[in-house]
């Protein structure tokens, strides 16, 4: 029992469970699942599908934070990736009524991901080679990136007409959303990479004590560079899912404030913002907590004007629940109460 309570994922999991219970109390059909059109259907599936982009971005963010960094440009990179993909796929109707993409789908997707990874590499170079503070280095791309996306799209919302692309954000595979498979696959790949190779040890040593890692011969710069590049790549994947989901690219709004949700998801999942210890599975749970909160607010019918205030209040409550200090105070008060 004690081992379960002290497991790093215990409190994130408890938080998520409480939110799910609260949701099902306010909406009796919340937890019900049914089979429709050859796939699972229900609020929970909807949450999993919508949470996928955030999960993907947050996984990249987890590693960046683990090496004592921060990437606040991920939202802008989502927009860039979405814009590149939408522009290259586009779609036009042929005489027979069939839709063709402007470039082959694989090429468009690869190009979008390559551009996103290049954005990550740029961030990494600023941090590692130019020695900038991560928050300042990535602030540059946060501002400039959205500008680049707008430049690409000419300030317009680019609509995509090519149906195969829609599968990423709307399709189902074996009864579950494709987006969820992508996020799950990425998590599994990262998990294996970090636990079955030395990468996990290197990342934790760089985050724990960068100077000691360097003295021990760890190639900290190269690894940090890779981590930022991967974070950009992950934001690119999220951009593809988002633009596929809405069948268009909106340079102004795609991925807006996603960087903050991602940092929140990482924190909720139990990764220390000071670097070193990280929890990939915790991050996934953190992303689910945020999406469940958002869905809950909608389903409760909270008016849009107070939406953000309600969300802030809920996030505050969640953070309190996860704070060991706060739980200690509560426990002391409870003990003191029973003693008196």
């Amino acid at each position, binding site marked *: 029992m004690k081992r379960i309570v002290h497991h790093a994922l215990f409190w994130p999991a408890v938080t998520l469970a409480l939110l799910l219970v609260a949701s099902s109390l306010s909406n009796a059909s919340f937890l019900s699942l049914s089979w429709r059109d050859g796939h699972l259907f229900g609020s929970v599936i909807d949450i999993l599908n919508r949470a996928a982009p955030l999960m993907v971005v947050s996984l990249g963010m987890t590693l960046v934070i683990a090496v004592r960094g921060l990437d606040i440009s991920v939202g802008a990179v989502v927009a860039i990736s979405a814009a590149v993909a939408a522009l290259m796929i586009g779609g036009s109707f042929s005489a027979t009524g069939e839709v063709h993409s402007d470039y082959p789908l694989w090429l468009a997707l690869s190009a979008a991901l390559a551009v996103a990874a290049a954005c990550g590499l740029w961030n990494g170079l600023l941090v590692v080679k130019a020695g900038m503070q991560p928050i300042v280095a990535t602030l540059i791309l946060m501002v400039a990136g959205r500008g680049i996306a707008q430049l690409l799209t000419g300030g317009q919302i680019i609509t995509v007409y090519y149906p195969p692309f829609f599968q990423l954000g709307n399709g189902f595979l074996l009864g579950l959303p494709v987006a969820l498979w992508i996020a799950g696959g990425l998590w599994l790949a990262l998990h294996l990479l970090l636990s079955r190779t030395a990468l996990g040890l290197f990342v934790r040593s760089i985050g724990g004590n960068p100077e000691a890692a360097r*003295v021990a011969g760890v190639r900290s710069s190269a690894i940090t560079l890779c981590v930022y590049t991967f974070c950009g790549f992950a934001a690119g994947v999220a951009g593809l899912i988002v633009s596929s989901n809405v069948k268009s690219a909106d340079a102004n709004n795609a991925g807006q404030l996603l960087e903050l949700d991602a940092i929140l998801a990482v924190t909720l999942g139990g990764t220390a913002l000071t670097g070193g210890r990280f929890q990939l599975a915790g991050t996934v749970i953190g992303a689910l907590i945020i999406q469940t909160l958002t869905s809950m607010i909608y389903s409760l019918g909270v008016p849009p004007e107070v939406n953000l205030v309600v969300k802030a209040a809920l996030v505050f409550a969640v953070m309190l629940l996860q704070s060991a200090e706060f739980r200690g105070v509560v426990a002391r008060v409870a003990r003191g109460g029973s003693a008196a």
Partner: protein
Amino acid sequence: MTDGASIVLKARDIARAFPGVQALAGVELTLRAGEVHALMGQNGAGKSTLIKVLTGVYAPDAGSIELLGKPVTPESPIHAQELGISAVHQESHLLPNLSVAENICAGRYPRRPWKRGGGIDWPETERRARELLAGLGIELDVAQLAGGLPAALQQLATVARAVATDARVLILDEPTSSLDAEEVKALFALIRRLRDKGVAILFVTHFLDQVYEICDRMTVLRNGKFVGEYVCGKLDARGLVAAMVGREVAVAERSATPASAAAGEHAPVLAANNLSRRGQLKPVDIELRHGEVLGLAGLLGSGRTELARLLFALDKRDSGDIRIDGQAAKLDDPADALKLGLGFCPEDRKHSGIVAELSVRENIALALQARMGLGKFLTLTEQRQIAEKLVAALGVKTASIETPIGQLSGGNQQKVIIARWLATHPRLLILDEPTRGIDVAAKQELMQEILGLARGGTAVLFISAEIEEVVRVSDRIMVLRDRAKAGELPPGADEDAVYSMIAQADPGHHLAPPAGS
């Protein structure tokens, strides 16, 4: 002092446990007015924990503390200070950007009356600080910024600050570890003046000679338990070490014929020509052979650490070719050095040695894994085997190899860092102050280990501020002075020879001082 001296502080039957470790059990401590009392023990014996209990950092699990006959329970360092128990820690903690007077009165600045506008009375602050320092016989300009003072004066000012609150008990935790002989003398003069004023002083150090110089009594701890209280005159150094260790200690001696004798025909493991870095080291030549311990001696700031860092490519060199086994080597960053079979135990363990939150096993595996790269992964089983073997070989005291290294005592952390490099089977191991802050027995074990390494064919560059240690383990000794090579001493040179070379008293070297100093 006599047995009749009045008892100021009496701690009885103190116990304190941490997860997996009983840090203190049944510990007794009696401090008397006007006496200097030494607290002795190896690393991990419980000295720091006892001090933290006395100063209210930790609450004891059991036991009582009496101050002037009244039971007290210090709840925090500030509370302890209010009770009259002050402590000065290893590195002085003055705020560098404040003046000496501001530092001394920090937290209890004299106020001006409200009628005159309130606020802090700065002239009064300076007056009080001057008065305190004068009373202690310390000559110091109180308006000067503390950060600009030499380490020794900072240390004196810290002691002054500690006793400014009318301390009845003053705890000095390794106050001399970063001071040179002259500075120690000044500190001891201050300690004696405080003693004569009736302050009870608890003195913690690893330097046995200092204990005998200044202390009246001592309390010895071993593995968290009370071994005994002794009058200094009645227990000699040998007996003291035996009490601390629990057995007699063998003294490491270098073998009469170094293992390098047979290595003459090989190219040196490492040869560097003209190695320099602006502002840190003037051009130096250095050569290390298989199985040889090269001692590097010199005063603080003579360029010892700088030379080591250049060899391991932690800093970029401005000039110099480095040859490994006779081959010109690409050596531009620590990862290159690791690939070439070099190892480096840094001087500053906390900042550049340990990764505190990682386990002992992970800390040991780190360098070996870094050399193997990402492609090949040491499995958990392999990591465990390596860690278990080295922990046993070096006698690291840890609850398990999965314990975070940050929870180990300083000496044990040092052993783990050495284990990290032994795991890579280095051909050259650079040890920068490996014995700093670790106890007598651990020092002996470490030096045995170094000699054992050299016998196995590893070249060792041994850097230490303690000349006696350098002389004891080294085959050859290189002396640095003013960031340049002062000279080299052959096998068999004694401490005096090293000192005279450092002091430039050797006439042969006197005539040829390093250029451009």
